[in-house]
């Protein structure tokens, strides 16, 4: 807990001001129903509730609008005209103009800036019923503004759908912005980019531990592709698999105790499972073909992986002890990079066809569906709630990190700059 706080440099004071949440959820079940008529959500401009002036406060509303737009559950109304002097609490403002503008859900927010301490108060209203649905207050430093706003976005989705949003999550990725391929971390929407590794070598394939506190990744720093584990808060690193040959595509098991990876120590690339310290090891595949890219099912009982044992790379699934291997993909000549959705029903992967395109397929092999079409798109990774997928794409000329909804809609570039960004992976909830 303490580590988490230090890491984010953020003290969150969560104040549930009105305990009317259960009712609110019932009322809003209908919101999630798919239909032609999406509800309209508006975010009013932030209001100063006290303390010093804060010209940058408008960013709070921009973050909320962007998050809610990606969520895809609502039509997000354009920023409204300059507001009246009314407050943000129930009874302090009139619903009528919002109702008249066709707004169904209204987010109001206010802030108090005291020194460097920013306190933000959020209210979500059902406009038609004239009723408050959710109220929260958060405190942090000024620079935590975006995080505070993302936190309320996560709250909104939890309140309306029962499943918390992933917007406070980070995306770890690989970039050559420092010339070499180093690991970086950024907010899911591309802000607050932080360089993690500085070893001047090639670093690849970051994968978060289930707690989100650690990453495993492959690095060539000792002239061999070895697997390293890194603690995010401290930067402490340990080499956990340095066997001769490749030590690549590490994937943390859902219980955090094991890491599946591909090793070629026995002559050709096979899937193994090692303990988190790398000491114990169990071999799962035994085949003269290439076996690589293991991906755990969320219950930890199965592992999807890539093998060219039938001549071309295809996706297979096996039990976590290596038994019961079965082929998953039957379409396409080159299918790679599987990742199991957090709900367990679907597997995202990429297929080579004029570059790569991202597909999802049900775990039983049905419902094979293409999600991307523009440029070459690789390395799909789910958000922890399964609502979104992050991936890399060349559609804008270079290579950048994108996010989209799990059905392929709302594809949005999130990483900025002209360098090549790849291998994104969305953090678990912290």
């Amino acid at each position: 807990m303490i580590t988490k706080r230090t890491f984010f440099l953020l003290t969150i004071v969560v104040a549930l001001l009105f305990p009317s949440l259960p009712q609110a959820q019932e009322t809003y079940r209908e919101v999630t129903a798919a239909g032609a008529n999406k509800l309209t959500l508006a975010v009013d401009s932030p209001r100063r509730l006290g303390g010093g002036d804060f010209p940058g406060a408008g960013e709070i509303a921009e973050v909320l609008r962007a998050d809610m737009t990606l969520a895809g559950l609502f039509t997000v109304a354009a920023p409204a005209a300059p507001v009246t002097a009314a407050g943000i609490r129930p009874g302090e403002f009139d619903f009528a103009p919002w109702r008249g503008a066709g707004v169904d859900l209204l987010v109001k927010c206010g802030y108090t800036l005291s020194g460097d301490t920013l306190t933000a108060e959020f209210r979500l209203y059902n406009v038609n019923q004239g009723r408050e649905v959710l109220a929260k207050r958060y405190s942090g430093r000024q620079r935590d503004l975006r995080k505070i706003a993302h936190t309320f976005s996560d709250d909104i989705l939890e309140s309306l759908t029962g499943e918390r949003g992933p917007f406070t999550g980070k995306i770890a990725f690989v970039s050559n912005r420092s010339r070499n391929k180093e690991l970086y971390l950024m907010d899911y929407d591309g802000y607050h980019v932080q360089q993690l590794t500085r070893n001047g070598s090639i670093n690849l394939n970051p994968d978060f531990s289930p707690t989100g506190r650690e990453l495993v990744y492959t690095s060539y720093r000792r002239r061999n592709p070895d697997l390293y584990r890194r603690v995010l808060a401290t930067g402490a690193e340990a080499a956990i698999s340095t066997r001769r040959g490749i030590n690549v595509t590490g994937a943390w098991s859902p219980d955090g105790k094991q890491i599946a990876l591909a090793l070629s120590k026995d002559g050709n690339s096979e899937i193994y499972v090692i303990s988190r310290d790398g000491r114990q090891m169990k071999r799962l595949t035994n085949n003269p073909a290439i076996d690589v890219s293991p991906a755990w099912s969320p219950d930890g009982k199965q592992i999807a992986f890539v093998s060219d044992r039938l001549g071309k790379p295809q996706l297979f699934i096996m039990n976590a002890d290596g038994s019961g291997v079965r082929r998953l993909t039957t379409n396409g000549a080159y299918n790679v990079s599987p990742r199991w959705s957090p709900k367990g029903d679907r597997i995202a992967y990429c297929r080579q066809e004029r570059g790569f395109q991202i597909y999802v397929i049900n775990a039983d092999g049905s419902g094979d569906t293409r999600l991307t079409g523009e440029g070459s798109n690789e390395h799909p990774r789910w958000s922890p709630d399964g609502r979104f997928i992050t991936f890399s794409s060349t559609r804008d000329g270079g290579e950048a990190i994108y996010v989209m909804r799990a059905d392929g809609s709302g594809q949005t570039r999130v990483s900025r700059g002209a360098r090549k960004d790849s291998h994104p992976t969305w953090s678990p909830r912290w």
Partner: protein
Amino acid sequence: MRTGTRGLVALLCATLMVAGGCAKKEMVKPEEGAPMAAPTPTPAPAPAPAKTEEPMAAQPVSEAAVKAEAPQEGVKGEEAEAALERIYFDFDSYVLSQQARDTLYRDAEILLKKQPASKVSLEGHCDERGSDEYNLALGEKRAKAAMDYLVTLGVPAERLSTISYGKEKPLDPAHTEEAWAKNRRVELIIVK
């Protein structure tokens, strides 16, 4: 059917490379090609199951054959002394083409005769069209295939090591067939 296509592609690639930078090396090829031609009617002796490394290990290349060719090698060898040549592969393949075997034969000559104490790192590389993760394994397979063949040619395994860079270190960053053909390679780097 598939094998046929592969063979054709391999032939095409080989032709391309011959037409490109490798012209002078080509002169050596006919002589060397002759003794090895028997088991391999096409440049890529690769039906699908041949992806195991057996066919390469089973390749009937004898020490004697190497030695018999040696004088000819020596004649042209002066300038190529330290230059170990890299070898190339078909897309998504780690099968050694006849041309790759010929090249490794010359490399083995250098390692056995001119650089008998050197240690060599075999670096496997892939083109950008493959997936990055899969390519790490594919590059490894390529490096291993080259190493196994050098060992059958008499280079002690202790002098050889492999490393795969997948598609992380392209020789030519262009997005063209020509660049891809150059990037699907194993480099022989003298490390000691």
